[in-house]
């Protein structure tokens, strides 16, 4: 009787699951009890009330208008914004550089593709922290003093105190420009849908690609240029001892950004190369044989298929950049891990709450992206039998 029970697959499954679950719960209870005992002994408070206390922590680089008299929650928010700011910029620049290197690697020019290949091999086999430290202590620290800044077009000034950039005096025109860009994107989306539907119904094609060039390419550029003329600019001026005006991007920020971009570009280049190589020659040849033009072949056949290969690893690379922005903690760029898990934790001692909040931020973005990825995959997946 007993052996027959034990040999039943379903019953054994239940027994296994129950055993694992009980083991896990016992372990968790053990840890939690130890933690609460240790915390009582060390006199550490628990709960999230500390968030509303005044922080007293100075943040050297901030976009939220934070000041040390603000609450610890405001400090948390300043850290989140700094993390997102450096990640977003790094994603844009690394994508651009990575595409260039990836295309160079596929170039038929031997020397060009070799140099791109050497760059990729060099970058991928060295720790990111090495890049961060190298840019910070090796490059930026050895730049000249502010009075002999390296200037680019007399607009950007690089020195050992960071990068000084022009600052728009009024933000409103840019807000309008961005609203216009979003409106154009919606317009493009609507027109493409209409064009696709009409092509499916009647077969007449509509130059929505040409329109996209205007709505997604020229119009946004024009809007941003117009906005930058509209607003005044506070341009840095080289003085006798120092620079006047402009906004200073601190050296930690510049070093972290440079490290993230140079490092991630090597990985993005490989993704781009892999994606373009994954589209077999037959696809292009078949499309041309069917009478599609070169442009149609590229836009309707090659790029959509390459994108299906490129986008999933690319998003995980973007998530990596977001997570890797925490390397800023090693050089005290005030991103989330550094200000919250570092400074705020030292001040309050509430390790569990603070660690939970920091991890929750990263997991939140990870969840959003993987959700978007699943939607994308289900739309893009090859329909097979």
């Amino acid at each position, binding site marked *: 009787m007993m052996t027959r029970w034990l040999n039943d697959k379903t019953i054994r*499954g239940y027994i296994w699951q129950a055993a694992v679950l009980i083991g896990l719960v016992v372990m968790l209870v053990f840890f939690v009890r130890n933690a609460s005992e240790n915390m009582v002994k060390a006199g550490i408070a628990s709960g999230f009330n500390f968030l509303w206390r005044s922080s007293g922590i100075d943040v050297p680089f901030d976009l939220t208008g934070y000041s040390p008299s603000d609450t610890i929650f405001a400090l948390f928010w300043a850290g989140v914004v700094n993390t997102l700011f450096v990640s977003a910029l790094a994603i844009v620049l690394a994508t651009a550089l990575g595409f260039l290197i990836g295309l160079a690697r596929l170039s038929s*020019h031997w*020397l060009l593709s070799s140099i791109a290949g050497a760059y990729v091999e060099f970058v991928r086999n060295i720790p990111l922290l090495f890049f961060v430290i190298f840019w910070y202590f*090796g490059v930026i620290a050895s730049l000249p003093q502010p009075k002999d800044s390296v200037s680019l077009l007399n607009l950007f000034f690089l020195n050992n105190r960071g990068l000084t950039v022009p600052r728009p005096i009024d933000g409103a025109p840019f807000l309008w420009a961005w609203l216009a860009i979003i409106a154009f994107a919606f317009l493009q989306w609507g027109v493409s849908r209409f064009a696709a539907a009409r092509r499916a119904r009647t077969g007449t094609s509509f130059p929505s690609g040409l329109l996209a060039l205007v709505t997604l390419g020229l119009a946004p550029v024009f809007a941003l240029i117009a906005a930058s003329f509209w607003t005044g600019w506070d341009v840095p001026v080289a003085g006798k001892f120092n620079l006047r005006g402009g906004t200073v991007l601190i050296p930690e920020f510049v070093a972290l950004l440079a490290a993230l971009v140079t490092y991630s570009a090597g990985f993005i280049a490989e993704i781009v190369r892999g994606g373009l190589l994954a589209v077999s020659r037959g696809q292009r040849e078949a499309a041309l044989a069917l009478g599609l033009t070169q442009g149609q072949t590229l836009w309707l056949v090659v790029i959509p298929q390459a994108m299906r290969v490129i986008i999933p690893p690319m998003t995980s690379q973007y998530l990596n950049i977001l997570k890797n922005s925490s390397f800023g903690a090693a050089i005290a760029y005030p991103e989330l891990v550094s200000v919250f898990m570092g400074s705020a934790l030292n001040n309050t001692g509430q*390790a569990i709450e603070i660690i939970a909040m920091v991890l929750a931020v990263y997991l939140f973005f990870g969840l959003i992206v993987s959700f978007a990825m699943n939607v994308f995959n289900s739309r893009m997946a090859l329909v097979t039998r």
Partner: protein
Amino acid sequence: MRTGTLPVWQKRLFGDLPTAIVTILLAVLMVAALVPILRWGLFNATWNGTTRADCVAGGACWVFIKARFGQFMYGLYPPGERWRADLFFGLIGLTIAAIAFLRGRKRVIALSAITLFFPLIGVWLLGGGYGLEPVETRNWGGLMLTLFMSIYSALIAVPLGILFALGRQSELPVIRIISVIFIEFWRGVPIIAVIFLASLLLPLIMPSGIGVDRLARAVIGLGLVIAAYIAEAVRGGLQALPKGQGEAAAALGLGYWKTTFLITLPQALRIALPAMTNEFISLVKNTTLVLVVSILDLLGIAQASLADPNWVGMNMEAYVFAGAIYWFICFALSRWSRAQERAT
């Protein structure tokens, strides 16, 4: 028609006008970049001497690396005991030799023996006790520590990763969900945060009186994160396996454990080996992050050595040396991984 290498190169580099222009442009750029680097690192560099005063040529001062070589390799490990670290390096060399030169059954036996005894012998050699003079982990450092952390984190990560990969493929919902949560959690958080977490939380969740060594915390933290990535690599291997393998084993009357450990897992691991090696490369690179909890691995010791008032301004020398070592280790591993990929 002429044959030989020269015309081929001529055609490659100067085949037509645009090609030639690009070649010349790139060559100019390369010369402009390489000449100062070579002048600094080779032609104007100082190789012989003992102090900073010997470096007068204006180029790199490799004397600094020579003077600091012991620290770069062993950290603050007591000089009289460094032969133990050398033995540790020797053990690693033996392992690599066993993987490279032995084949078939001999290789299996050698590697099983190594996996069984290496971990204990390594800790005993470096940490001491049982006849050897104890050396506290805070005196460990340099390349020795980088390798130690990489290997011991991998020793945690590989079994755990295989376990969770099997769990994620399991038909039992509770086990599957637990595995998914474990994997996605550790993959979703930055490693630097995990190292902070491990160094803060591990002492907190242990019964009072039981301390967890600072280095052990870092190794466990790294091990947990890499386990999640290894699990995904192994899952890739399991999914790449034709379904028939498992079904055939079941039809022959093998149960779950026999099917897994005799049929599916060995094949899946072979498929997953290149991906697992890539995760090991990223582990080697990520061991540098222990810098934030003041453990001095190779990069940490390079950074710390810059504070020496007798050797001011040696940043570039220290970084180039440390960077080159990381590069060689990771490059060798990635080549090996690629060779494995081609072999399967």
